[in-house]
């Protein structure tokens, strides 16, 4: 488990339509403790995906830095695994091969990496799908493969970019519960981007509310684990926390 520190992270770019500089992210500083699950919420366009892309290394920061375990990051790497909204599974590889991809890139031999992959597929209850191709699976199953693929590479930080947005509401709830279950077993530092306030409060230890490129507020979520939707949906503390976060997001 490693810590993640954002140090005055900024992103500005030149907007050809506006003809001027646009600041997408403005001096965001954040410390995520090892093993912590942090959710970032905010209205559309507040810069949350830009921040995630900078942490992941897909976008260079205009200023500021990202530190994983005290080391500055430059560009993408296996220490920061990513789960995409579009799943981004490789259609030409089977589920097993997809999950074994990270270990393969690290040079692990075939037998060993398939064993690792199967272990993780078991964890997510996907063993039966190992030999299938992604296009044969439902959206929910594909995203589970996406999560497991990122985890199988033992990243220091797991970055999730609205991963359940493309999935139907019921599947989403079971995926959220399953994510927490896996996270409890394989504790890793998580940054989870979403626009769904209830999802953020359900999943996270701490919710960061973003507004127009800066951090508006941070709200701790001291709810006990394991968390279940049927228990929490009527829980007073869950409801008040969700209401508080929602109010902050809307005021942004």
């Amino acid at each position, binding site marked *: 488990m490693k810590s993640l520190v954002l140090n005055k992270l900024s992103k500005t770019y030149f907007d050809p339509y506006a003809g001027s500089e646009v600041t997408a992210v403005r001096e965001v500083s954040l410390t995520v403790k090892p093993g912590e699950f942090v959710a970032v919420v905010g209205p559309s366009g507040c810069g949350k995906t830009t921040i995630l892309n900078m942490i*992941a290394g897909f976008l260079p920061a205009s200023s500021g830095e990202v530190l994983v375990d005290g080391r500055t990051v430059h560009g993408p790497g296996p220490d920061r695994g990513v789960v995409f909204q579009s799943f981004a599974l490789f259609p030409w590889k089977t589920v097993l091969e997809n999950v074994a991809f990270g270990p393969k890139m690290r040079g692990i031999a075939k037998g060993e990496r398939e064993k690792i992959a199967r272990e993780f597929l078991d964890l997510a209850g996907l063993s039966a799908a190992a030999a299938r191709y992604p296009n044969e699976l439902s959206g929910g199953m594909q995203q589970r493969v996406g999560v497991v693929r*990122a985890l199988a590479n033992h990243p220091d930080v797991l970055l999730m970019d609205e991963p359940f947005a493309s999935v139907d509401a019921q599947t989403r709830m079971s995926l959220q519960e399953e994510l927490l279950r896996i996270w409890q077993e394989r504790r890793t530092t998580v940054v989870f981007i979403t626009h769904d306030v209830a999802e953020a409060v359900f999943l996270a230890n701490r919710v960061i509310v973003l507004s127009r490129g800066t951090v508006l507020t941070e709200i701790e979520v001291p709810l006990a684990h394991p968390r279940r939707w049927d228990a929490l949906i009527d829980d007073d503390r869950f409801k008040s926390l969700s209401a508080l976060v929602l109010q902050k997001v809307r005021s942004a």
Partner: protein
Amino acid sequence: MNGLAYLWVRWIWSPYMRATARWPSTRSVVPFLPLIAVWWGVAQAELFPRTFFPGPAEVVSSFFTLVYKGILPEYLADSVTRLAVGAAAGIAIGIPLGLLVGLNRRAHDALWPVLLFFQAIGDIAWLPILLIWFGFGLTTMTLIIVYTVLFPIVLNTVLGVRAIPLDMHRAAKSLGASPLAIIREVVLPGALPNIVTGLRNGLGYGWRALIAAEIIVGTSGIGFLMFDARRAGSVVEIMLGMIVLGVLWFIVDAWVLAPIERATGQRWGMVQRQ
């Protein structure tokens, strides 16, 4: 069941179904049957003089004669070999070039306009200058084929490379893939359906260019066969040549290219299953 329907099912439909179940490729023959029937009818009715418009029977008989004399197999082998050599060279140059132009911004800006320009010049337009430089021979013909096969392959490869979603590149990078590994594991398979399309188009154009080149330059080959037959006034051989061309391409597409596409694009869900 009324008598006619019974006869249809008993003698035509059921045998057809059984035959196509055991040998699925026979299904593709069926659309040609009406065509052949019309051809036979028109020839039989002698709407045109028999020497100008022979019927299927004459063409088949000529086929057996030429095979017996060994001419047809030899010419066929010549044509196919030339195409294979040209295609191999075209693929060996075209795919890496396509990958480079598709992946590298600078290569793209530098080469794309040039590629489009030369594509427009077209294959046969090069024939006069190649004949001056290399004469009437194998070099000229091979160059024509390589040139013709190259462009669809390059252009489709570029398309295929650029069609790969950005997230897929990002996913590979966040899983620790090096740039070379990304080309091997993401770009090549991702572009493969488009590359196969490029192959299909390239080989199709290459085949046609080959025949044209053989007509002009040739000493052997199917194109030469047809053109030589013109001088002898033998329409039968010309028709035979044309049919051989069609059948050959059909075979290449149905037994080589389509299975590749099925095993890759369709299985991966990137191309709609038929």
